């Protein structure tokens, strides 16, 4: 060790480190990455899809029961399946999945993860009830009041379970993430947009013409509205993106995201058929996943100057 290091001063060519080392500590990233990789991008997508579908179905059903009761009864079981898949991902992402229930030994509003876990856990109960009672109603046992009660009870924790995710991923010290003031605004808004889109597909499959007409309009308005928090989010991330990616890369991803939003908009504007609705919603979900992936990647990507081959 002694001879090796002191030779750095004498010779012009210091011995090469075994791992591409850096001299001094300046310009190094101080923080450590939490290891929230692709699984978290999928989690953020499924979280929005599950909570968004429930909220869109519940709000529509409560506002216009005559139009939406049929499609809502299908939406709740679908939302439950999405939520369960999401919960599995969340548990698997823990360092010690068998200790998941340790999350429930305290309630700590200062921790977005704690608030979110409690919202998800509480929400899963009325959602399960609403889904089960919807299925039972199909089978002939109709407990309409209890089902509506479950839907109403689920509204607040369901909203909380959608709203915490963005705050969790922006309240931390990670490069880029710490500047993403509009992530929560975007994710919650996007959850409702995706929920509306999923409800639209279900209505199309079930040939509910009135529901399709209303949801098509709502989808178009929400899709345009969603551009605002998305734009604000990317404005927050401009500095970090400039450090991580070349201009060309930024333009390509930006164009991909824009196209991913414009294609569903065009399709839904042109045609209200099942095929075009399905294709539009697939594009929207893919686009939503892309935005989340780009975001989740930020702390895992090294800045441009130390990356080789760029």
């Amino acid at each position: 060790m002694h001879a090796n290091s002191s030779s750095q001063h004498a010779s012009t060519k210091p011995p090469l480190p075994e791992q591409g080392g850096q001299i001094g500590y300046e310009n190094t990233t101080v923080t450590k990455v939490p290891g929230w990789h692709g699984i978290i991008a999928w989690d953020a997508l499924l979280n929005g899809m599950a909570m968004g579908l429930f909220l869109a179905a519940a709000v529509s059903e409560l506002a216009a029961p005559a139009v939406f009761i049929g499609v809502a009864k299908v939406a709740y079981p679908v939302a439950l399946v999405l939520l369960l898949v999401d919960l599995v991902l969340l548990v698997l992402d823990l360092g010690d999945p068998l200790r998941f229930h340790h999350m429930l030994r305290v309630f700590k509003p200062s921790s977005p993860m704690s608030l979110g876990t409690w919202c998800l856990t509480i929400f899963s109960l009325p959602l399960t009830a609403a889904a089960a009672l919807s299925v039972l109603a199909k089978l002939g046992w109709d407990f309409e009041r209890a089902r509506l009660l479950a839907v109403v009870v689920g509204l607040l924790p369901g909203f909380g379970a959608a709203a915490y995710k963005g705050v969790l991923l922006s309240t931390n010290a990670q490069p880029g993430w710490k500047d993403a003031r509009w992530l929560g605004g975007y994710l919650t808004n996007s959850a409702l947009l995706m929920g509306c889109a999923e409800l639209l597909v279900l209505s199309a499959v079930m040939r509910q013409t009135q529901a399709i007409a209303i949801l098509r309009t709502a989808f178009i308005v929400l899709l345009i509205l969603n551009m605002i928090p998305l734009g604000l989010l990317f404005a927050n991330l401009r500095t970090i993106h400039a450090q991580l990616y070349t201009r060309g890369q930024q333009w390509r991803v930006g164009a991909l995201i824009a196209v991913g939003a414009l294609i569903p908009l065009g399709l839904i504007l042109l045609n209200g058929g099942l095929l075009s609705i399905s294709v539009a919603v697939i594009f929207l979900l893919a686009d939503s996943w892309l935005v989340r992936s780009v975001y989740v990647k930020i702390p895992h990507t090294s800045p441009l100057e130390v990356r080789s081959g760029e």
Partner: protein
Amino acid sequence: MASREHELSALPQTSDPPRGRLSQLLARLISPYLHGEPRGPVPEVLGRLIYPFVRGEAPKPQQATGFYTDTTVCIGCKACEVACKQWNQLPSDGFNWSGNSYDNTNELSATTWRHVKFIEQFSEQTSNVLAPMGTVSDESPLNRWLMMSDHCKHCLAAPCHQACPTGAIIQNEFENVYIQADICNGCSSCIAACPFGVITRSEMGGHSHKCTLCYDRQRDGLEPACAKACPTQSIHFGPVEELREQASKRVDQLHERGVPQAYLYGDVPSETYSAMHSFYLLVDRPSVYGLPDAPFNPWLHMMGDYVRSVAGGLVAIAVLLVVVFLLKP
């Protein structure tokens, strides 16, 4: 007696008696699990399920303790690193030449709680590589080593503590930030939250670990292993108030002796960050030592982020409602 880190984290910590009737009842229910008696699958599952809900009696608050690290007398011997690894039974990280001076430890992690940093500032050969570091004294050529023994800052308002959803991270009776290894479930929130990059998740067991400020030794009235081992008294341990006094005297002394750039890092709160119970005496900018120049507590943004998040959802719900009411037959 556990001999490895993953065994340590798996051991139930039964030192504090259960608090309240419910906890006593629960503790009795899982008594075989708590006392490591031979057990079948049912007591095992029951024990695992109930164990985190058993509350211990909170110890009486003591005088707040911490570290004051005087980097000007550090000689880079790494005795603190060795003492820390030995006392806390931390496993090896393997060995790699880093190419960065004598620093082959590289970083703080779940298995490295002390990290001695080496900064070479030599004017003949630093002009191209280390040029920006020469900012502190333009009049005299820099020909010096900076050495600093880095570790957890034990922040008064610690982001990791605020982030922890399991309550595994606590502020103990000495006001030190302590991770209860038997409670942590490896969610990584603390890793994302720490502005100093102190915490990581262990490959063994999947839990987060960091400097405990030798909680076990403190409870037995001993000073932490690193402070005990430091041969130059670069690492001071004691009541925080006394350390602050001692440190500010040392700064004055250095100023008198012609080191005007000496200052304390983290001894008092800034606008964006709380005071730290382990603070440093430095003689160059914090970033030279790999510390954030202006540490920022992410929680200052949390309420605003929640407001924007909720607003984003409420606006969308309002739009949906308006469309439904306008178009419904």
